[in-house]
C-alpha cells in the first residue's frame, strides 16, 4: 500500500440501487484515473464520493497511507474539484472570484495574469461571470485548477460538450499537470488518449 492515493472496497448505494461495490484502486503521481461509463452508470457518484461530497456505504480512502477521514483538511488542500456547475458567483468578476478562492487556500499561485493569458481569457477578467459564455466559464474553472497548487485534479466530465479546440486545451493542461508529478481523476464517457499511465475503471 505505498501508492499516494488508494481506495479500498468502496461501496455506494443510491436509494435502493447499488452503484458500485467493493471497488478498489491505487494512483500515483503522474498517473491518470479514468472513470468510464455511460450516463447514469455511477461514475459521477464515484468521483463525488472520492472528493468527499457523498458519504460511502463502506470502504476507506487513503492519502499518503492515512485514511482521508482523519485528515479531511489536508486532503482537501491537495485536491481541486471541477464539475458541471462551475461554482463561481455570477455577479462577481472573474478576478474577484479567483481571488476569493485563493484566500481559501494558503499556497495558491500568484501569476494570475499569466494563467489567464494562457487560457485566452485575460481580456475578460473584469467582466462579471454572468456575461461569459459557457465555454469561457469552463476556462475560468481551468484557471482555478492552475491557480491552486493542488496535486490531485478531480474533473467530472471536463471535455463533454467542448469543441475540438477546447478538448485539446483541457488535455494539454492535464498532460502538463501529470508531467509535473500531479495526479488526475477524470470521469468521462468517451475514451481519453494521453501519453501517461492511465488506470481505467469501467462502471455499468
Amino acid at each position, binding site marked *: 500500500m505505498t501508492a499516494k492515493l488508494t481506495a479500498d472496497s468502496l461501496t455506494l448505494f443510491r436509494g435502493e440501487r447499488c452503484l458500485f461495490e467493493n471497488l478498489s484502486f491505487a494512483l500515483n503521481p503522474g498517473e491518470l484515473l479514468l472513470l468510464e461509463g455511460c450516463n447514469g452508470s455511477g461514475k459521477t457518484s464515484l468521483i463525488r464520493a472520492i*472528493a*468527499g*461530497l*457523498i*458519504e460511502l456505504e463502506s470502504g476507506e480512502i487513503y492519502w499518503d497511507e492515512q485514511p482521508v477521514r482523519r485528515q479531511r*483538511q*489536508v486532503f*482537501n*488542500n491537495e*485536491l*481541486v*474539484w471541477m*464539475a*458541471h*456547475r*462551475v*461554482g*463561481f*458567483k*455570477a*455577479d*462577481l468578476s472573474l478576478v*474577484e472570484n479567483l481571488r*476569493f*478562492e485563493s*484566500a*481559501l*487556500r*494558503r*499556497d495558491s499561485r500568484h501569476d494570475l495574469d499569466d494563467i489567464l493569458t494562457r487560457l485566452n481569457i485575460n481580456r475578460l477578467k473584469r467582466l462579471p461571470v454572468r456575461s461569459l459564455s459557457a465555454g469561457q466559464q469552463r476556462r475560468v474553472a481551468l484557471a482555478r485548477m492552475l491557480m491552486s497548487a493542488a496535486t490531485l485534479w478531480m474533473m467530472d466530465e471536463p471535455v463533454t460538450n467542448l469543441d475540438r479546440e477546447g478538448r485539446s486545451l483541457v488535455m494539454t493542461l492535464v498532460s502538463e499537470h501529470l508531467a509535473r508529478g500531479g495526479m488526475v481523476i477524470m470521469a468521462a464517457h468517451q475514451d481519453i488518449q494521453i501519453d501517461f499511465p492511465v488506470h481505467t475503471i469501467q462502471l455499468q
Partner: protein
Amino acid sequence: MTDNQPEMPGLGRGMMAVAKRDLFLAWKRPGDVLNPLFFFAMVATLFPLAVGPSAEQLEFSGPGVLWVAALLAMLLSLNSLFVSDFEDGSLEQMLVSPVPLAALSLGKTIAHWLTSGLPLVIVAPILGMTFRMPASVMGVLMLTLLLGTISLSLLGSIGAALTVGLHRGTALLSLLILPLAMPLLIFGARTVSLAAAGDVVAGGLYFLAAYAVLIVSLAPFAIAAALRISNE
C-alpha cells in the same frame, strides 16, 4: 490546524473571506437587504392601524409586536441564504475547501446578520416611537434585538441549510425555525415589557446573552453537517 501542517489556510482568514464576499454580493443587490427591512417596518406600522390608536394598547403591545415583526423579517431573509450558492455550485466548492465548513458557515452567517439583523436593530427605535416607547425602554429593545437577531441568524441558518434545494422549502423553513425561536421571542419581548414597567431586566438580558453564546458555539457545526447532507 495542527503544528506539523504549516500550509493550512487559517480559519479566521477563510471565514472573513466568505463574509467579505457575501457582503460585497449583498451590496450589489441591495433589494435583498432592503426587502426584509421594509417588511419589518410595514408589519410594525400596520399593527397600530389595525389595533387602534389607544395609547395604553400601543404601549402594551409594542415590545411583542416589534419582536414578532423582527422574527418574521429574519425568516424572510433566511430563505435565500444558501440557495444561490447551492445552485451555482459555489457551495460545493466550499465543501471541498481546506477551510473547515463550520468556519465558512459562520462567515456566511456573520454576513447575513450584518445585512439582515443589524439593520433591524438600528431601525427598531424609530418604530418604537409609533408605539410610544420611552427612550430608556428603546435601549433595552435594541439590546434584546441585538442579541436575539444574532441567535436567530444562526438558528435560522441551520434551518436554511436543511431545506436548501427542497421543494416548498420556504414554508418548511418557518415550521422548523419558529418553535426553536420561541425562547428568544419570550425572553426578548418580555424583557422589554419589564423595562417598560420599570422592573429589573438583567435576568432576561443574561439569558439572551447566554443563549447567543451557546448558539454561536454549536450552530456552525450543525450548519456544516446540514449543508453536507443537503448537497448530496
